[in-house]
């Protein structure tokens, strides 16, 4: 595995064969290739590694109530008073390693009285340090086993302090003055003179509920009844965490162990069972229940923070009804079909505003800008036919013969050259506001840089 760090490929992780050849972590890839030309590498993905470690952490909590990640590649579990459940400390380790090996994970593990001791031993062979034997087992280890900076370890080596046991014999005050308090803290933590708890972070709340039924059901009303009960439980969970659901998924397990899935999206975070239930009705109604449904599982797949709100306010009720409408429209037409306009800072007419899904953005005020005048409707450029004159004196647009009464312009708009827009590849456009004697006021343009002399219509004024 290689990782690109500060502009150079480095070895991020390597297998046993590679380390036997003499490669080590953090080595430049070029050097490693010089030593071992047959080296095969793959880019590392720290994000996925982190996720995998998190999954392992959840699994490791079977060995003790407090399981935490330790750095980027380690796990620490507090097994105080737990080991006898697995038959003893040695048996616990054997069980852990057997299970990991079965899953294809190459891991080293160690058990010690202190977190520092376990850390050192796990990286130097693994095993169990029996109670009271910390100093005898850790003593012969090099000082780098103390979780200290490499620079500090080097400095200690220069003083002739190579082993952990050496550190315990020299006076502490000069050490602390020279290398800082960090070194002594690590030493004390490793030898159990200073406590170091396993700071396991709390699990992220899981917003999912399920119900298994003794008898299969098939009627829509029955499924909705069960769903309502599940929703109440889920919304209680959401309320406790001050979260609101944005997307919900209902899995219906049939008797023949096939499953159907119903998903709904919400226009804004919500935890009101009755209103969410109404959105599920259409999806549940369409599900084929087969031989019957005997298990339901409801989970909020996307949640957002939702602080408690005062209820009963007329304005809040109106906002609720509006977001219900957007949810209803969004669940049938797709949430991207319900749009809202946002201002954008571009002079290109098509890009002078944004259309974004109304469910994902709130309204933003448009700047009060009245000049230059813009048309109220905009359409993709339409070629004018039978044009005479420039600006056109007569032309035909949408099968209407029009005569120009007045023409204002030109207003030249140049394309954003940093964006490659095929519609603007003919360069700048000269826009004219043409009032016709028939009444229509049109926005016409031509592209002076293009070879053709065609005129196009792109908008209608008030």
């Amino acid at each position, binding site marked *: 595995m290689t990782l690109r760090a500060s502009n150079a490929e480095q070895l991020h992780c390597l297998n046993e064969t590679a380390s036997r050849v003499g490669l080590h972590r953090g080595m430049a890839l070029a050097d490693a290739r010089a030593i071992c030309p047959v080296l095969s590498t793959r880019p590392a993905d720290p994000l996925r590694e982190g996720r995998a470690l998190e999954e392992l952490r959840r699994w490791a909590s079977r060995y003790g109530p407090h399981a935490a990640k330790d750095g980027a590649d380690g796990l620490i579990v507090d097994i105080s008073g737990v080991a006898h459940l697995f038959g003893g400390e040695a048996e616990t380790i054997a069980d852990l390693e057997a299970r990991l090996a079965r899953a294809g994970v190459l891991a080293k593990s160690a058990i010690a009285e202190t977190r520092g001791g376990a850390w050192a031993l796990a990286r130097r062979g693994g095993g169990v340090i029996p109670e009271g034997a910390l100093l005898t087992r850790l003593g012969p280890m090099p000082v780098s086993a103390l979780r200290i900076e490499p620079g500090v370890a080097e400095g200690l080596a220069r003083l002739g302090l190579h082993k952990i046991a050496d550190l315990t014999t020299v006076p502490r005050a000069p050490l602390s003055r020279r290398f800082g308090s960090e070194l002594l803290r690590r030493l004390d933590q490793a030898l159990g003179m200073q406590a170091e708890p396993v700071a396991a972070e709390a699990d992220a709340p899981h917003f999912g509920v399920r119900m298994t039924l003794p008898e299969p059901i098939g009627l829509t009303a029955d499924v909705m009844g069960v769903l309502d009960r599940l929703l109440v439980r889920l919304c209680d969970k959401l309320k406790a965490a001050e979260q609101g659901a944005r997307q919900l998924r209902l899995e219906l397990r049939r008797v023949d162990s096939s499953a159907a899935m119903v998903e709904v999206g919400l226009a804004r975070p919500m935890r009101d069972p009755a209103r969410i239930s109404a959105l599920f009705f259409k999806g549940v109604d369409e599900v084929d229940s087969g031989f019957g449904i005997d298990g339901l599982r409801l989970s909020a797949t996307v949640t957002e923070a939702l602080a408690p709100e005062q209820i009963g306010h007329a304005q809040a009720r*109106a*906002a609720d*009804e*509006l977001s*219900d*409408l*957007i949810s*209803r*429209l969004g669940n*049938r*037409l797709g949430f991207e*079909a*319900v*749009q*809202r*306009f946002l*201002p954008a800072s571009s002079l290109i*007419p098509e890009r*002078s*505003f944004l*259309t974004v899904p*109304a469910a994902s953005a709130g*309204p*933003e*005020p*448009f700047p*009060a*800008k*009245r000049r230059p*005048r*813009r*048309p*109220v*409707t*905009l*359409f*993709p450029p339409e070629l004018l036919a039978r044009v005479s004159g420039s600006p056109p004196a007569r032309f035909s647009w949408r099968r209407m013969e029009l005569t120009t*009464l*007045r023409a*204002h312009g030109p207003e030249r708009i140049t394309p954003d050259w940093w964006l490659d827009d095929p519609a603007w590849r003919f360069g700048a456009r000269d826009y004219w506001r043409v*009032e*016709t*004697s*028939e*009444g*229509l*006021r049109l926005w016409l343009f031509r592209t002076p840089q293009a070879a053709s002399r065609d005129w196009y219509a792109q*908008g*209608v*004024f*008030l």
Partner: protein
Amino acid sequence: MQTRPDQSFAASIDPFRLLNARVHEVEGQGRIGFALFQAVRTTGPVFWICLAHDRDRPMPLAWPDGVAERLHLVETRTETDLLWATEEALRTRPVALVIAVPEKPISLTVGRRLQLAAEAGGTTGLMLIREGRGSNAAETRWTCDPLAGAADSTHQRWSLSKNKKGTTGIYDVSWNGETAAFHLVPQAGERHQPEAPPP
């Protein structure tokens, strides 16, 4: 069936006030301008429902102040979806105005359903239709066309060709699309008497 009070007195003050909780129709080249004129006179959210393949799209930069922030654009793939979305929006109480751009003629059933939805939600609906594709259930039908005028003018002829609860009429207005204010332009009439001699 609920009988609504006669609004003709209010209508006599303001000829362009659309009756609330009803669906109206507007046709002609200037129909989008008329829809925007009605949108600026409301205060609540406005829904604009059109078909995804419709080429004419509203352009928020030119709209009156405060309309672009309140407007939701709903794109539907089929005509059925469009009518369904219109009905849903009409049934929602806080929505102030629903503007729908159907392509096919509105049948009497559809028109009546939309009226019922508007009554249930107390919202106003405005259907932008092509020439002659309206339904008899519409409360009013307007024909709006731009008029040529002096330089930079924004004259429009808004003629009320059908009105279930009041009179029809032809109005020439000048509305510049910035505020809710408009000018009624006296129509140019033919002079039947010779001009009075100068004093």
